[in-house]
């Protein structure tokens, strides 16, 4: 057993972990920082793996921070060494490679793990998840080796759609199987769904909704197709599961740290155990637009949470009020941005929308109690951030509701006080 003492210990090496370290260093240049992560790679950006798969970026571009990041920030990085146990009472973490690390402050940023269903044939060759750099590498190699012509993506959420995009670019005919009545069910409404379906059909993608894969068809452990729960069979050489990601809370749970839909944290990102913090996809956080506690596994939230955790761990004071669900995704070249709660169409919700079917342009803004609660833009997403900003800041739009979807809408339309804030820049005091 190798014993290590550190002031700050970070479990994880992705978005939340990196922003946490940067925040710690902004306040504490000297305190020792150690980092433990299962993956050997230095920090890379997970959302980029689909870009890597289809060759639109090089492996070099995967890295989220420069090579000398660890050295410059004086981080003792134990990469490829998974944390096995948190002993909260003794402020100690044990690793798979035999280190015993005692800490003063701990960040759990272990992210999530993709879900694989327990169905017959799931261990067959040709079945993948799509979550890490290694997954992308495995998929790429398999496509080359097996000369894959036809693939099935199970799950039409964000990861599924990004996988689909990459496979199409590689010339692989791809079907999508989605349990919900349409793909991207949480971020699209019916109208946007129709536009997306049409675009996918034009590109030769078959979508099988309202069903799921019940069996992987394989001979000698080699995949040749899938059977759906409606008994239909699809021939394919490869199956990619993208049915969801579960927060990786095992370590926290075993240590007696409170969990719900992820590790439960205060608005200072501290867990139920003082001195132990959590950030990113592993946490449960407050959804600002719906008021519900949930797991918000999004890149910007992970960054913000990591930052807030880091500042507080280093003795500063910063709060995370909660997050807004938001996504920017492109489906066969059709850009889509969906922010906030675009489903909540109750009696008290006003809906402003505009559809231009010919050019596949769709814009919708939802307003509740004079505040914007959601926006959904398809194929013309320029300047959407102005709405996002208003959602975040809870701006009263009663005076400007008629302007919300006009051509002139912009910074000039915003209520005067808020406009001043926007023009001065976020974080800049005037």
């Amino acid at each position, binding site marked *: 057993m190798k014993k290590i003492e550190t002031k700050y210990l970070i479990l994880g090496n992705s978005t939340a972990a990196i922003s946490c370290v940067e925040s710690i260093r902004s306040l504490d240049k000297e305190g020792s920082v150690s980092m433990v992560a299962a993956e050997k790679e230095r920090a890379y950006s997970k959302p980029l793996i689909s870009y890597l798969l289809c060759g*639109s970026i090089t492996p070099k571009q995967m*890295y989220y921070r420069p090579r000398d990041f660890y050295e410059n920030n004086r981080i003792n990085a134990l990469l490829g060494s998974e944390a096995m146990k948190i002993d909260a009472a003794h402020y100690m973490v044990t690793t798979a490679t035999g280190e015993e690390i005692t800490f003063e402050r701990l960040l759990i940023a272990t992210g999530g793990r993709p879900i694989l269903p327990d169905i017959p044939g799931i261990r067959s060759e040709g079945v993948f998840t799509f979550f890490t750099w290694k997954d992308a590498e495995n998929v790429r190699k398999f496509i080359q080796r097996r000369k894959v012509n036809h693939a099935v993506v199970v799950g039409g959420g964000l990861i599924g759609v990004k996988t689909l995009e990459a496979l199409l670019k590689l010339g692989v005919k791809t079907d999508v199987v989605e349990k919900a009545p349409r793909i991207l069910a949480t971020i699209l409404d019916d109208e946007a769904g129709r536009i997306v379906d049409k675009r996918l059909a034009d590109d030769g993608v078959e979508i099988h909704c309202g069903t799921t894969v019940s069996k992987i068809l394989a001979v000698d452990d080699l995949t040749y197709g899938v059977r759906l729960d409606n008994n239909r069979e699809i021939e394919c050489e490869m199956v990619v599961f993208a049915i969801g990601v579960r927060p990786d809370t095992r370590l926290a749970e075993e240590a007696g740290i409170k969990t719900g839909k992820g590790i439960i944290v205060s608005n200072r990102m501290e867990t139920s155990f003082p001195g132990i913090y959590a950030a990113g996809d592993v946490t449960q956080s407050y959804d600002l637009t719906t008021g519900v506690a949930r797991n918000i596994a999004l*890149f*910007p939230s992970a960054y913000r949470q990591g930052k807030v955790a880091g500042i507080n761990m280093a003795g500063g004071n910063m709060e995370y009020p909660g997050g807004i669900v938001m996504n920017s995704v492109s489906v066969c070249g059709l850009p889509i941005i969906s922010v906030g709660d675009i489903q909540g169409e109750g009696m008290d919700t006003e809906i402003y929308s505009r559809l231009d079917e010919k050019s596949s342009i769709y814009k919708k803004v939802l307003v509740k109690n004079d505040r914007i609660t959601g926006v959904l833009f398809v194929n013309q997403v320029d*300047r959407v951030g102005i709405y996002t*900003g208003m959602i975040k800041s809870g701006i009263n739009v009663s005076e400007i509701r008629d302007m919300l979807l006009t051509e002139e809408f912009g910074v*000039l339309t915003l209520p005067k006080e808020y406009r001043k804030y*926007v023009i001065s820049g976020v974080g800049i005091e005037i």
Partner: protein
Amino acid sequence: MGHIKARENYCLGCKLCEIHCLVAHSRSKKILKCFTNEKDEITSRILVEDTGHISFAVQCRHCTEAPCIESCISGAMHYEQKTGAVLCDTNRCVGCLMCVMVCPAGAVLRSRKGTVVSKCDLCLESGIPACVENCPNEALYYEED
């Protein structure tokens, strides 16, 4: 680092700032060449808003807690080390549009091809922002912090 500021009462809505921004970020830096050969490749990084009775030019505010940097999945959006200006390394940008989704001023724009984003770089290389230099009414001015 300084900031480009605007006086909305002075803005004529002439859009010369947009034109000079385009030229300043073109390969040729020549107005005619730029409009005959490059106009499909470049986007103005400043945008004149016009409501009919007032107009106003908007470009990146170079936030100190920039939402675009926090949301950038590729590491392309970054603070320039010396000045703290918010810049986009277009070689790294993958065009995911997360920055477009979060910029409260709507100041990060898509490039013409839609593959990378385009935003104000304060004309750091040449010194004085082209929009400020060419604003006929001094509606745009540059102020050191």
